[in-house]
């Protein structure tokens, strides 16, 4: 079974480039050049240097002793929360800004939900001196004021998406419309492993540094490269794609993807796409998609703004269909408790997205000597207001 993208841009039944003709020249230019650009020696040198000196990589692989004792297994946390800007998102934006420079683009656009990808994009634009416009749902702008302020300090313009539900899906629509209107000078930095081919593959490759490091770090610590399980939360699925990449073809490594169940899968307030979605087309790719019978895209719900997306990256749709990955859904309540648990046991306050991945131990039992690597995709500073409200702190 092939879990990687094929030459037509598909992962099994999913992927492709379902884009209006207006976007074709841009997407085609990227498709025909991205691999060549990414694997140029000079590019790799610059990319790796920035990951080291600017992002602070390699990120530690931390053995969570007290959490492991509590759940009776061996838990390792891949500390993407320690990256510059506080999440894994920057791995991708560093890569894409270097691609954009090599394509001769001088205007950058991005979409953002909670604001993490927006901040990571604004950051790299400041780093190289490119103009940056971030689309963000009007409702999210109100919910995530500190990240809006960060983007502004970094010199980005934040444009409200006022259509539809005024959240991530609509911010993505607006970014795509901007790209249609500015086809020559603009590069669109998509923040997740979604969008038309080659975006899911390009983003996955930039994030694959996560699993590349896990391999040698485990080798150093345990004398073997492969854990028994890798675990990550999945919204669009970029941290998960990076965490799995180098293990996809290692059948002894179990893959566990954690989705947001919201208030519960059958409550109508959920974002568990693998359970609630059907094959459909969103934002340029064929994937599993939450939609009405009539094919209108529905509004997902999760307490976590980063998991609040009606689709899932095409690679993840393929991993779900082929059952290479096991999908577990975690409710708001279970996620919040898991976030508190990690804070109390390990002194790490995780992003609420990540808290979902940490909540699997209620649902899945591991053996005592299983090595379980969880991607700690982001830190919880941005979610403090949510935690305060939820726990009445």
């Amino acid at each position, binding site marked *: 079974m092939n879990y990687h993208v094929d030459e037509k841009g598909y992962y099994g039944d999913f992927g492709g480039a379902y884009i209006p003709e207006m976007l074709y020249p841009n997407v085609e230019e990227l498709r025909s050049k991205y691999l060549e650009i990414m694997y140029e020696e000079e590019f790799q040198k610059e990319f790796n240097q920035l990951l080291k000196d600017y992002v602070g990589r390699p990120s530690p692989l931390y053995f969570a002793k007290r959490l492991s004792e509590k759940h009776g297994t061996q838990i390792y946390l891949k500390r993407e929360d320690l990256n510059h800007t506080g999440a894994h998102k920057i791995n991708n934006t560093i890569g894409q800004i270097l691609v954009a420079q090599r394509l001769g683009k001088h205007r950058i656009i991005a979409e953002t939900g909670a604001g993490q990808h927006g901040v990571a994009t604004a950051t790299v634009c400041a780093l190289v001196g490119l103009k940056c416009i971030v689309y963000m749902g009007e409702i999210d702008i109100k919910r995530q004021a500190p990240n809006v302020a960060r983007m502004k300090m970094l010199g980005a313009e934040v444009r409200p998406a006022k259509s539809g539900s005024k959240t991530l899906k609509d911010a993505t629509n607006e970014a795509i419309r901007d790209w249609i209107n*500015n086809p020559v000078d603009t590069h669109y930095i998509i923040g997740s492993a979604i969008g038309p081919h080659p975006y899911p593959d390009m983003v996955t490759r930039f994030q694959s540094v996560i699993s590349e490091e896990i391999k040698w770090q485990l080798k150093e610590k345990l004398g073997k490269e492969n854990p028994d399980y890798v675990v990550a939360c999945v919204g669009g699925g970029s941290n998960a794609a990076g965490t799995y990449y180098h293990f996809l073809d290692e059948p002894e490594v179990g893959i566990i993807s954690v989705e947001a169940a919201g208030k519960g899968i059958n409550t109508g307030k959920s974002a568990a796409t693998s359970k609630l979605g059907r094959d459909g087309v969103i934002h340029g790719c064929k994937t599993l998609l939450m939609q009405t*019978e009539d094919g209108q895209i529905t509004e997902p719900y999760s307490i976590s703004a980063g998991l609040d997306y009606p689709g899932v990256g095409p690679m993840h749709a393929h991993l779900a269909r082929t059952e290479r990955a096991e999908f577990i859904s975690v409710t708001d309540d279970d996620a919040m408790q898991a976030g508190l648990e990690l804070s109390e046991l390990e002194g790490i306050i995780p992003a609420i997205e990540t808290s979902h991945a940490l909540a699997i131990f209620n649902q899945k039992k591991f053996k005592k000597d299983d090595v379980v690597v969880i991607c700690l995709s982001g830190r919880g500073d941005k979610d403090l207001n949510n935690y305060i409200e939820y726990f009445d702190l």
Partner: protein
Amino acid sequence: MNRINKKLSEGKKLLSIYFTAGYPNLNDTASIIEQLEESGVDMIEIGLPFSDPLADGPTIQDSSTAALHNGMTTKKLFEQLEGIRDKVSIPLIIMGYFNPMMQYGVETFCAKCQELGIDGLILPDLPVAEYDLYYRKIFEKYGLVNVFLITPQTSEERIRFIDEVSDGFIYMVSSASVTGSTTGFGNVQEDYFKRIESMNLKNPQIVGFGINNSETFTQATATAKGAIIGSAFIKMLTKEGKKGIDAFVKSIR
């Protein structure tokens, strides 16, 4: 011969109008079609509304949202078009995004179109390559003309490919924009229109995006076979309702 091809063979410039089905009111579809034919329009694009219309500007987005809110669905639209061929003979094209069609079932959708007397489809987010590979045979089986878009950025090689795959007309997007921009046509468009004319394509071209009055209609059809008006027509409907249709069409040419 398909009604679209027949219309294209007439020796005149064609005026085509787009409207969103289910807007302003859920059951306006048939009466808008009849009125458009009566006022002398040559071709009609019936917009099947979608929740996330990527290629559309605010006017068509808003009309789509309103139509969905009114209760428009694919099934509903097909019900409304039941018997339309007893009333009008004008070429009818359904324009919409691919996902609702995919959920209805591509073949079932095409069969239904043939049964109702729909002549063609425009699906901006169904790429030519995917169409050619997976869907062309189905469209052809049901006698549907599929229309592709080109833009000022489309390469000559790709225009040739689209021309080869097409069997009706080519939808020539006037400028790099979503629908409903009103900046008018400048040198860029003039050069683009001339460049396409000089390519001597086998399919005639109909210009869309940014046509909103008699002046832009005349400019667009100086070299092209016709032009499509969408957002400007919907704006008029919002303001004046169906009673404004005749005056609007007559103001264009």
